[in-house]
């Protein structure tokens, strides 16, 4: 279980007289074990900052994050992250990229490689074990990113807009496959996205965040049954889906006006 209590964080203003930006304000959130939680919000709402706090990559000003009761002080072996930038090592083959996390933990190559090969198969990249990242398409690269994260057998999978840079059909394919994998090997997933459809399709709950300051506006439960991966198209056409996305859009649109007014104070995403 992940408990986030009273989390606040500001970024110092750049330049003289520029006020600091409140990236997160009093964020309270409890994430259950094996829950698939999606976080939705306009750019600049601090959703990525929230994820980076959970990952232990950045510090915060106030509040605390507990994972199974233990406070987060930095990155930990029970968490693994999938990046929007994918962040594969261009000099290493697919296998070497997937074994990266294991090797850092002192697992020998001979032990790490069979595990990596299993995961490469799981994400549908059999035959590409020795390929270099530049030989792969964006979707295939992100599959490697996912396999790398799964390789360290995390309790919590942190996904920062992982499919944000992919084209529509690749994105749909990967959503389906991510759900399939998650249905088979359950972990807690915190999934950041700016797509309403993606948030509803994948999530058990959708956390809706607003910008300036970044805070949680609403937590919307998604009651659609699981498993969903085998009939994602039906899910997308369902009345529930329509109702929830409409509800989310109504909220998001009501802020667009405010955001327009506040445009004078730019915010780092």
């Amino acid at each position, binding site marked *: 279980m992940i408990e986030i209590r009273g989390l606040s964080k500001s970024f110092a203003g750049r330049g003289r007289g520029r006020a600091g930006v409140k990236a997160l304000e009093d964020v309270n959130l409890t994430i259950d074990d094996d829950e698939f939680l999606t976080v939705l919000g306009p750019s600049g709402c601090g959703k990525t900052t929230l994820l980076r706090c959970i990952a232990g990559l950045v510090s915060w000003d106030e509040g605390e994050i507990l994972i199974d009761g233990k406070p987060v002080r930095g990155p930990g072996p029970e968490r693994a992250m999938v990046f929007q930038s994918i962040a594969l090592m*261009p000099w290493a083959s697919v296998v070497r990229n997937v074994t990266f996390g294991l090797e*850092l933990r002192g697992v020998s190559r001979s032990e790490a490689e069979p595990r990596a090969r299993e995961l490469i198969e799981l994400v549908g990249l059999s035959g590409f074990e020795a390929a270099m990242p530049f030989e792969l398409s964006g979707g295939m690269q992100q599959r490697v990113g996912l396999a790398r994260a799964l390789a360290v057998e995390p309790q919590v999978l942190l996904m920062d807009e992982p499919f944000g840079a992919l084209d529509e059909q690749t994105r749909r394919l990967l959503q389906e496959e991510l759900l399939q994998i998650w249905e088979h090997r359950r972990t807690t997933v915190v999934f950041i996205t700016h797509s309403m459809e993606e948030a509803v399709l994948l999530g058990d709950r959708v956390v809706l965040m607003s910008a300036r300051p970044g805070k949680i506006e609403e937590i919307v439960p998604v009651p659609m049954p699981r498993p969903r991966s085998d009939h994602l198209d039906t899910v997308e056409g369902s009345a529930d889906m329509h109702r929830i996305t409409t509800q989310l859009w109504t909220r998001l649109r009501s802020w667009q006006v405010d955001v327009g007014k506040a445009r004078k104070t730019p915010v780092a995403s």
Partner: protein
Amino acid sequence: MSIPAAVSPRIAGRHPRPPWVGFSWQAGAAPTAIALLAGIVFWEVVGRVAGFRFFPPFSDVFARLFEMIGNGEILPPLAGSLRNLAIGFGIAVVVGITVGLLMGAYKRVETALDIYVYALLTAPSLVFAPIMFSIFGLGPEPIIGVIIIYTIFIIIINTSSAVQTVPRPLIEMGRSYCASDWQIFRRIILPSALPMIMAGLRLAGARAVEGMVNGELFIAAVGLGAVISRAGSRFDATTVLAVLLLTLVIAFAVVRTIMFIDRRTTSWLPETQRATR
């Protein structure tokens, strides 16, 4: 879960081409050979027809070079020069990469040193020859010193910017997998910076030969520079050009060796990116 059928594992397993391909032997052996031949013919014709006193034709120069190799006139000074080159360049590489890595990794080291590094990079390196001479006297040491000054700053600057341009997301990725500082350095910063470090070494390699000859010409007691200098004072242009020819071959060999090592160590670079360096 499956991959799209259109994407076959054809490209898997091997690089598009082996790392040594791209050497002009394969990629452009014919143009290189033609250009060389044209240059030699031009030299020969101009040398014969024009009859300038200090511009002997290629065949004379080439014959003189072989004569000097045969009678032992050139091999001992050549060995001495190459020894100085190896020591000087070796020191520059080791110290330069170390300082460059420190400057790249630590902002304070960079702020402290970069004014010196840039100033010394821009300063004409040969002005240090008399200083070296006065410190070390006659012998190989001042020449080694000149070679170091010719090469070290470019190595430092390239290494330090190589470290600074390591993509931040990669470092963050390493940290998210609990990498220690040392692991991040060893497994992310170093491999990521290597292509640019090697590019610096390539530039420095050519400058090392330049530094060697210039240093020897100035101090004129040892090595190939001494041979040139003695021949020059006799107005023996054939010998001067013969030695010059030899230094060109050395410079070419040094640069090619570094390029070869570069290709082996950074074979992961896509060819498209390599071309832009």
